[in-house]
């Protein structure tokens, strides 16, 4: 602690104690302030969770947190689904899409990242700049031609237009994240392996991949969550309700409820759709937060 008492004549023992007391008061204020902020930030989620137990009649009359007459009817209704499609179907579709996105993204991004980070080849500079450029590219300029291409190929209303781009590393965010991670790895190991005659495939598979596991896990988590939340692509490409993932299913609920119909079911479906992400968050929060903190910014 830095003492500012100059001369040091009177009360040598009191000043530090008072200082400690002030520090304690500050910490308590800090804690209370942040707690209040937490309640404000998490209020919409808490409201959503408790609203799933409100009967339909209470929407519009009871804006508070707690239901007057708690019921679990909403969950029963939501399981039945909407537009003739049961809720599990939306979940299954979302799950298939998200898992495919994870596999495709991690695989293709790791391959591309290795090339950018560890191989010296003609064109490296141009392609790396192009990759960074796509990081800033608004997707508006590509979705219309992409739609035309996928439509010509007869892939509309299949999962292919949603999954294929993931296997082609189109999200530069992931490639860049892994590139940054590989660059931090010491080159000694690859050099030694190369002297022993190992080729790039060998080095990639046996040396780099095990080392970059944390980055791959971060990518996997984000790829899953982004695909789970994605609304635009399924909205454009999927036309039959039995192919809908959750976000489009939720839209059906929202459209139905703005006609004044079942608000309880809409809110409950929204909550149910969030559960996997909230679970992911609780299990992997360290990974997510550290991933953003260390890899989102290094470079």
């Amino acid at each position, binding site marked *: 602690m830095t003492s500012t008492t100059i001369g040091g004549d009177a009360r040598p023992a009191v000043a530090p104690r008072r200082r400690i007391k002030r520090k304690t008061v500050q910490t308590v204020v800090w804690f209370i302030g*942040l707690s209040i*902020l937490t309640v404000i*930030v*998490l209020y*919409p989620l808490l*409201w*959503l969770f408790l609203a799933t137990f409100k009967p339909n009649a209470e929407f519009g*009359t009871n*804006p508070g947190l707690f239901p007057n007459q708690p019921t679990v009817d909403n969950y029963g209704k939501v399981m039945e689904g909407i537009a003739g499609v049961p809720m599990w179907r939306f979940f299954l579709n979302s799950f298939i899409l998200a898992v495919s996105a994870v596999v495709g993204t991690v695989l293709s991004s790791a391959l*591309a990242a290795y*090339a950018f980070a560890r*191989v*010296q*080849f003609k*064109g490296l500079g141009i*392609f790396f700049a*192009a*990759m960074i450029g*796509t990081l*800033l*590219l*608004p997707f*508006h*300029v*590509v*979705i*219309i*031609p*992409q*739609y*035309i291409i996928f439509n010509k190929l007869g892939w509309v209303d299949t999962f292919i237009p949603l999954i294929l*781009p993931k*296997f*082609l*590393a*189109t999200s530069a965010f992931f490639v860049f994240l892994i590139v940054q991670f590989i660059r931090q790895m010491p080159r*000694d*190991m690859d*050099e*030694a*392996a190369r*002297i022993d005659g190992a080729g*790039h495939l060998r080095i990639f598979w*046996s*040396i780099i991949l*095990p080392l970059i596991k944390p980055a791959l896990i971060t990518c996997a988590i984000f790829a899953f*969550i982004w695909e789970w939340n994605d609304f*635009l692509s399924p*909205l454009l490409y999927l036309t039959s309700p039995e192919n809908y993932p959750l976000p489009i299913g939720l839209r059906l609920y*929202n459209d139905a409820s*703005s006609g004044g119909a079942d608000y309880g079911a809409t*809110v409950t479906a*929204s909550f149910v*759709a*969030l559960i996997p992400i909230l679970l992911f968050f609780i299990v992997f*929060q360290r990974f*997510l*937060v550290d991933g*953003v*903190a260390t890899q989102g910014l290094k470079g």
Partner: protein
Amino acid sequence: MSTTATRVIVTEDRSSAHLLRKSRREVDPVRPGQRARVRRETAAGYAFLTPWLIGFLGLTLVPMVYSLYLSFTRYNIFAPPKWIGLDNYIRLFTKDPVFLQSSEITLIYVFVGTPITLAAALGTAMLLNYRDKGSGFFRSAFYAPSLIGASVSIAIVWRAMFATDGPVDSGLQAFGIDLGGWIGNPSMVLPMMILLHVWTFGSTMVIFLAGLKQIPKELYEAAEMDGAGAWRRFRAVTIPMLSPVMFFNLLLGLIGAFQVFASAYIISNGSGGPAGMTNFIKRGFSDGQMGYAAAMAWVLLIVVALLAFILFRTQKSWVHYAGDDK
């Protein structure tokens, strides 16, 4: 060869590998096998890059060029495109009040929402940086909305929160403020969207927090010794030291905000919409005016590119990279 074997070799050979690299570089120009090696490296590079290259060419570069072409045509997906020159662009800026209005709303959303979000993120990050113990929980709690803010679920919650006699409306009424429901009121939809944007300040906060932790404590101590107050320390130490992170957040924040879609679509119920994005989708896909929508996309691209250009050009005057001072 297993990884453990490699590791053993590495620990033994670390120093000599270094020397080897150096000596090889000196020998390189006259080495006969060098050409073959370069060719091999190039082949390997492109092999690894193949998936990305296919995606880049087939799903980014060619579509970009094609949409530029489409923007000069009249095109719905059924008949071949018809060249109409600059008509789409002229129509955008002179004959389409919906486009102008949605552009205005988008610009307000981007240039008001992003700075507020950044300020909220920086403020909270500084609060969390005050103390390590116990801040982990708050950090996670504030981060959570970032993961779900763009989801349809949250857009539906937002609608419910801001409905007539909903939680926000009745809360305000308790203070004697009667704005009515925000949903039905076009002038309140934008503030609602901005609030949703601000609500997702957590990911930006986490990046700021990581930046704050890297500022050496001695700088603050030195400033305090020189008699700098809290504000002065913030201005003279925190802001310059954090400016690279600020630049990164500002750039990605602005560009990201231009592309908000799901929340705008759900909150406005797919009609017109507060953000230009919903207008774009409506034109391109519901109205089948793909050439016209492509022109909109290129206007957006030019705006975003201009913005990025301005930010990169001005960064010299306000972004302070470690090592380029003194």
